[in-house]
């Protein structure tokens, strides 16, 4: 076997092997256009190499002419493929130049078939044979066509296009792209240039060389294969790093007990991490959908969560929610979730990613703290009732006294003859009214004494203040304290527990009275002022009493008391109640406004539209 056979067949097989590799890459990933183009180029190089081989070994003019004409087909297609490859893979190269070159090459191909023999020769007159790498090879001798220059200038244009694309890529200053420009662009320029020189030498007959352009093309193909290989290596590296990142994230999310869920809104598909599946009671293979998710929620939470998700998708783009999960055979659990919506180009939601965490234990701890706080608040209320007893006795005694007198008047009225029925009716109406009043007092008393779970509902702060003042009315007049109230005309609402807020106010009022107990009667003035302050409601209770210690905060410390029998728990409990209402409670000396102190309560205001 001669070297020519060995080299050309090895070149062909190398090309075909590369073609198979990249073709199969494209087959698996249809988006890999570069690989498809490359496979096509490699096949074309192999086919073109075969033509060259046959030309070298051809001995008759007729056979040579035929091969010469048809050899142009793979050659032109190869060049066009390279042009497309550069456009696609480099992303550079001027469009007009590209189309010009492609047009030029197609023109050359058309002329090739219009010519009696081929693009280069009108007629091949003889074959010159000489020894080349241990074999006798043929080169043509013939009459050149007038269009031969068209083919050569086509090659020149191709070179210009490649040079332009390569320089543009090199200018981008990205290391990776410069490398590609130098390597692929450089090899393209060198090899096409070399092939052009050989073709010219051949066709002009200046120096007989057998057709061996496919070897140059092979070099280009190898350079490209190397580059593509680099890309694939990079991709593999990125994939490995991604895998690593994912593992790290899985580790982190598992350590933090986080469950992850990603929902493709368009396709309505859900992916969830194992932890998430475990949290919501899905097996590892069970398909997840929104309905299955909602079924696992506590019935009371379903609608709220549905609404939260809908809002996130339509407007907010994110959400945060706490809810209960009920899985048959498992204790009820609390979950908190945060999610973010990803929108596509049209502003439509594309996917939702969310992280969930089991907060059952937190909730239990919170609940215990809340229970303790409530127990303490209750205890403090009961203690406070001792102070209130005078008021309550009076409040209750008064209607009872009126009822008794009315009832006895009625007895006497009915003993008369004839009995005064109209009068009797009137008396009975009053008795009923007073009875109601007495039971209202008892209801208030009971509400204060009751120890029940605190509830949050929108409350009119105006009403709470009025009701507390009704409860302490007698006490205040008994202590000679006058109250000035400055309440706005419109109703200000807060979210809270009626009894607890009343308790805080009662406590502040009693404190104010105690602070003024050694004042002369005319100087026992208290004021209750309510104002609306940036999204919050502020109630300020002021007195003209003995004032605060230098460090005002001290009064909120447990067991701090200035009263002979004070436990020193009233204000700390008040503060904990207000904090639990997301509010603030603080004290201020009246300063320039006179002696005494002012206690401020600030609670978030509830706007009317919020239920």
């Amino acid at each position: 076997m001669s070297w020519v056979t060995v080299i050309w067949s090895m070149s062909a097989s190398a090309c075909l092997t590369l073609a198979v590799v990249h073709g199969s890459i494209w087959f698996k990933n249809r988006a890999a256009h570069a690989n498809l183009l490359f496979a096509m180029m490699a096949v074309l190089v192999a086919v073109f190499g075969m033509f060259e081989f046959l030309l070298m070994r051809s001995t008759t003019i007729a056979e040579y002419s035929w091969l010469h004409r048809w050899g142009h087909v793979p050659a032109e297609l190869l060049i066009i493929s390279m042009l497309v490859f550069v456009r696609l893979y480099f992303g550079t190269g001027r469009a007009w130049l590209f189309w010009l070159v492609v047009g030029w090459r197609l023109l050359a191909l058309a002329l090739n078939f219009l010519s009696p023999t081929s693009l280069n020769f009108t007629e091949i007159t003889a074959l010159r044979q000489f020894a080349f790498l241990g074999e006798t090879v043929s080169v043509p001798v013939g009459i050149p066509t007038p269009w031969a220059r068209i083919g050569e200038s086509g090659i020149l244009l191709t070179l210009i296009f490649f040079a332009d694309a390569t320089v543009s890529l090199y200018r981008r200053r990205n290391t990776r792209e410069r490398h590609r420009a130098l390597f692929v662009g450089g090899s393209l320029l060198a090899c096409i240039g070399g092939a052009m020189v050989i073709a010219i030498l051949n066709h002009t007959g200046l120096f007989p060389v057998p057709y061996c352009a496919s070897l140059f093309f092979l070099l280009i193909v190898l350079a490209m294969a190397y580059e593509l290989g680099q890309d694939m290596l990079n991709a593999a590296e990125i994939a490995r790093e991604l895998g690593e990142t994912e593992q790290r994230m899985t580790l982190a999310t598992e350590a933090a007990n986080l469950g992850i869920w990603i929902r493709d809104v368009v396709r309505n598909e859900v992916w969830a991490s194992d932890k998430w599946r475990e949290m919501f009671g899905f097996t590892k293979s069970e398909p997840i959908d929104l309905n299955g998710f909602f079924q696992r929620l506590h019935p009371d939470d379903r609608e709220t969560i549905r609404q939260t998700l809908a809002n996130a998708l339509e407007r907010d783009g994110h959400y945060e929610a706490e809810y209960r999960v009920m899985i048959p055979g498992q204790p009820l659990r609390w979950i908190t979730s945060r999610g973010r919506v990803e929108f596509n180009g049209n502003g439509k939601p594309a996917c939702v990613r969310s992280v969930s965490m089991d907060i059952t234990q937190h909730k239990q701890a919170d609940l215990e703290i809340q229970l303790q706080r409530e127990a303490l608040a209750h205890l403090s209320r009961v203690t406070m009732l001792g102070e209130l007893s005078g008021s309550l006795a009076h409040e209750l005694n008064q209607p009872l006294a009126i009822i008794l007198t009315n009832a006895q008047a009625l007895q006497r009225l009915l003993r008369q003859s004839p009995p005064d029925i109209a009068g009797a009716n009137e008396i009975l109406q009053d008795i009923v009214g007073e009875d109601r009043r007495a039971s209202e007092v008892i209801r208030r008393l009971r509400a204060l004494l009751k120890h029940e779970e605190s509830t949050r509902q929108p409350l009119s702060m105006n009403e709470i203040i009025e009701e507390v003042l009704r409860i302490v009315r007698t006490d205040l007049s008994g202590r000679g304290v006058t109250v000035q109230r400055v309440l706005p005309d419109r109703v200000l609402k807060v979210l809270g527990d009626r009894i607890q807020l009343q308790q805080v106010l009662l406590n502040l009022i009693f404190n104010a009275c105690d602070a003024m107990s050694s004042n002369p009667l005319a100087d026992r003035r208290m004021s209750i002022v309510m104002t609306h302050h940036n999204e919050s409601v502020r109630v300020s209770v002021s007195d003209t009493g003995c004032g605060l210690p230098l460090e005002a905060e001290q009064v909120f410390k447990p067991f701090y008391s200035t009263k002979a029998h004070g436990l020193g728990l009233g204000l700390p409990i008040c503060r904990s109640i207000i904090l639990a209402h997301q509010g603030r409670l603080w004290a201020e000396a009246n300063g320039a406004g006179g002696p005494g102190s002012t206690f401020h309560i600030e609670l978030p205001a509830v706007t009317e539209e919020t239920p």
Partner: protein
Amino acid sequence: MNTESGTVYLLDDEVGMIKALTRLLTIEGFTVRGFTSAKAFLDMYAPSEASCLVLDVAMPELNGLDLQQRLTRSGVLLPIIFLTGHGDIPMSVQAIRAGAVDFLTKPVNDADLLRAVRTALEQAVKQRDLISKTALLHERHARLTPREREVMERVVAGQLNKQIASDLGTGEHTIKVHRARVMEKMGVESLADLVRAAERLGKK
């Protein structure tokens, strides 16, 4: 319906209480006038007839005991019955000492209240009687001649006619005539009555 003489004034800050007490007392034949503030009562009160006051101790602006003091100081003789929601002993002692007729706790039993009101009105009538009798005596005393007054002074002081005659430098017979005039003018029948009248006039 039997009618009782005298007016009962009610003073309580609760309208309901006033209404109930008014009913009870009206049925029992009393004339009743109710007030919810001490000021309104003081403006309206006219001591023209026998009356008494049923007073709530715990009045917002003017405390019941203070009102009592004020009335006494301005010389108004008005029997007061105190009503209280939570009366304590020191308070009741103070009230009684200052001349209160009774000190009742709410809720008050009708019989107790009526008894107290009757007692108070009787006391008022007696006081009025006393006052009107004294006024009559003053009037009569004013009609005596200076000599008759001198004679009366000595008679009630226990001097005998003979002593008076020698003191005033006249005869015993003249003194006897003066003495009979005094008894007649003062409207008394016996020496003992004259002595009592002089006591009331503060001439002894």
